[in-house]
């Protein structure tokens, strides 16, 4: 019996080391944690520094005109960011116009309308949309969506609006191939849906049930509850969620590269091919050298500034709620 107690005691001793780490090891651990946190900071600074360093010759060469020039000519070494910047902003804006209503609809459906048994599978489906790699969205957009879009939207709409003022240029496809800025915007919309919907759903879930129930109690319909109770309560964080979606849409690369058509042309029609900053970098970077490389880096620098401003605003708006 005594022997047994002894073995148990010894076994215990094996599992839990009685010796505590020395003061030095403790300080080392602390320093390592500190260092890793600093490393995260340094990476962000490093990203900005490296891109600014790479893009500097282009900024110096073209000055402020880099932002306003539509030129992109490898032969004459004339580079400007205008087409790519407009393409980036236009496709992201289209993504928001389509993606935000979709996301909010999904969030409202999941929190207010969905029957209990279906909530988990439906939520899982929407969340899995976020896990699909962006290159797969690109393939889907180019091989499945674009042909359908060309046949059922671009051709009929182009025929309908041909010759009309304003819409005749805005919605006219010279070559109805299905790819273009609008297609890129639609694919981006689908890609930001899971992110925006997930945050919006968390916000709606956090609104005290009693508010909702009292609104229903005085006879409000679901629409009135959503419009007058839920939206005002969650508006700030929903705007934050939208900005977060915008940040993603601005920097998305592979999916856009597949479906935007990669043309350096300013066009008034959203059916026409264009390019974004990210798609141009992805397309040209490997073959570029000299001033073209610097110009691409400078484009990256502009993208950095735009997305980081958007993301900072987004985080400031959602921070209050997201900290667990």
């Amino acid at each position, binding site marked *: 019996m005594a022997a047994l107690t002894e073995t148990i005691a010894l076994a215990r001793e094996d599992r839990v080391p009685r010796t505590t780490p020395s003061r030095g090891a403790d300080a080392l651990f602390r320093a390592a944690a500190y260092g890793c946190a600093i490393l*995260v900071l340094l*990476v962000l600074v490093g990203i900005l520094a490296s891109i600014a360093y790479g893009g500097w010759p282009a900024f110096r060469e073209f000055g402020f005109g880099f932002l306003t020039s539509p030129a992109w000519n490898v032969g004459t070494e004339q580079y400007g960011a205008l087409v790519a910047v407009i393409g980036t902003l236009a496709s992201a804006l289209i993504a928001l116009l389509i993606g935000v209503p979709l996301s909010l609809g999904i969030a409202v459906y999941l929190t207010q309308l969905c029957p209990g048994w279906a909530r988990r599978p439906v939520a899982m489906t929407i969340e899995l949309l976020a896990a699909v790699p962006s290159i797969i969205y690109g393939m889907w957009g180019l091989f499945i969506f674009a042909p359908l879009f060309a046949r059922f939207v671009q051709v009929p709409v182009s025929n309908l609006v041909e010759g009309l003022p304003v819409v005749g240029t805005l919605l006219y496809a010279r070559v109805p191939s299905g790819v273009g800025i609008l297609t890129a915007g639609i694919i981006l919309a689908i890609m930001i849906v899971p992110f925006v919907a997930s945050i919006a759903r968390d916000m709606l879930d956090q609104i005290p049930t009693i508010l909702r129930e009292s609104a229903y109690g005085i006879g409000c319909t679901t*629409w009135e509850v959503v419009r007058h109770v839920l939206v005002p309560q969650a508006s700030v964080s929903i705007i934050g969620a939208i900005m977060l979606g915008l940040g993603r849409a601005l920097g998305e690369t592979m999916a856009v590269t597949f479906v935007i058509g990669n043309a350096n042309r300013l066009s008034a029609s959203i059916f026409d091919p264009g390019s974004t900053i990210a798609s141009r970098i992805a397309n040209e970077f490997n073959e570029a050298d000299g001033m073209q490389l610097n110009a691409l880096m400078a484009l990256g620098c502009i993208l950095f500034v735009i997305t980081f401003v958007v993301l900072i605003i987004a985080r400031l708006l959602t921070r209050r709620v997201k900290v667990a």
Partner: protein
Amino acid sequence: MDATTPMAAMHAAPVSRVRSSRRVADRVLRVSCFAATLIGAVVLGSILLMLIIEGLRGITPTLLTQPTPGPGSEGGGIANAVLGSLVLTFIGIVVATPVGVMAGTFLAEYGRGSKLAELVRFLNDILLSAPSILIGLFVYTLMVRPMGTYSGWAGGVALAIIATPVIVRTTEDMLRLVPGSMREAGAALGAPASTVIRQVTWRAASAGIVTGIILALARIAGETAPLLFTALNNNSWFSPNLMGGIANLPVMIYQFALSPYPNWQQLAWAGALLITATILALSVVARFVLSPKRH
């Protein structure tokens, strides 16, 4: 109820019309919310269907035994790309895990309430959604240009930079869920801070931290943009020497899907099916099996 509801009183319109307009608004909301959800589900379904139909057609006996074929040559597989992707993802996770867990530990334990922790947390959240192509440019400037060659190491580092913020965030969130009384109990036994963290808080939060690592894995496994300028691609057999371009699935899919050769396109589809199935499986495990508490 009819005339006394605030809405009806506000509009001061005939009772019956107000009621029907309210009903219509409500119906429209219900139907459009359902439609939005349906669109999401249909898109996911159509993506999966596309991958299964096209991907299964691309599966050949040599798919996982032969390297990618040269332009215009027949047959071949994607064995080198699969292996390369595994290696790159492995490097990414092996680098990101210690850094991410330690930084998350700093945020949740040592840095609580400090200005530095506040700043790191904020910038980490921004890094979490930073465009991955910019990370590619960064690693290109940092490693590819000085070394003079594309390399697997550079690709791995780029992936690590993308994975780290995910791990930092989940580690911090999970450590914060550990009740303070457990730390106090550890400290009361005379354990130094590092012992309490390693033997009490990390253990209590281990399932959540592992979930974060798997999510990070799922995130980097399909990343393409940062690999374009770092690991690039090649058609030769995988070699343990990671200098020079290294074949990997995402870049292979990108190049082959847009190529004019039918057998390349088929290989791209097979690769796309393989990579998506892997990532979706990882996400399902991480989100719905390991952490069922959420939702």
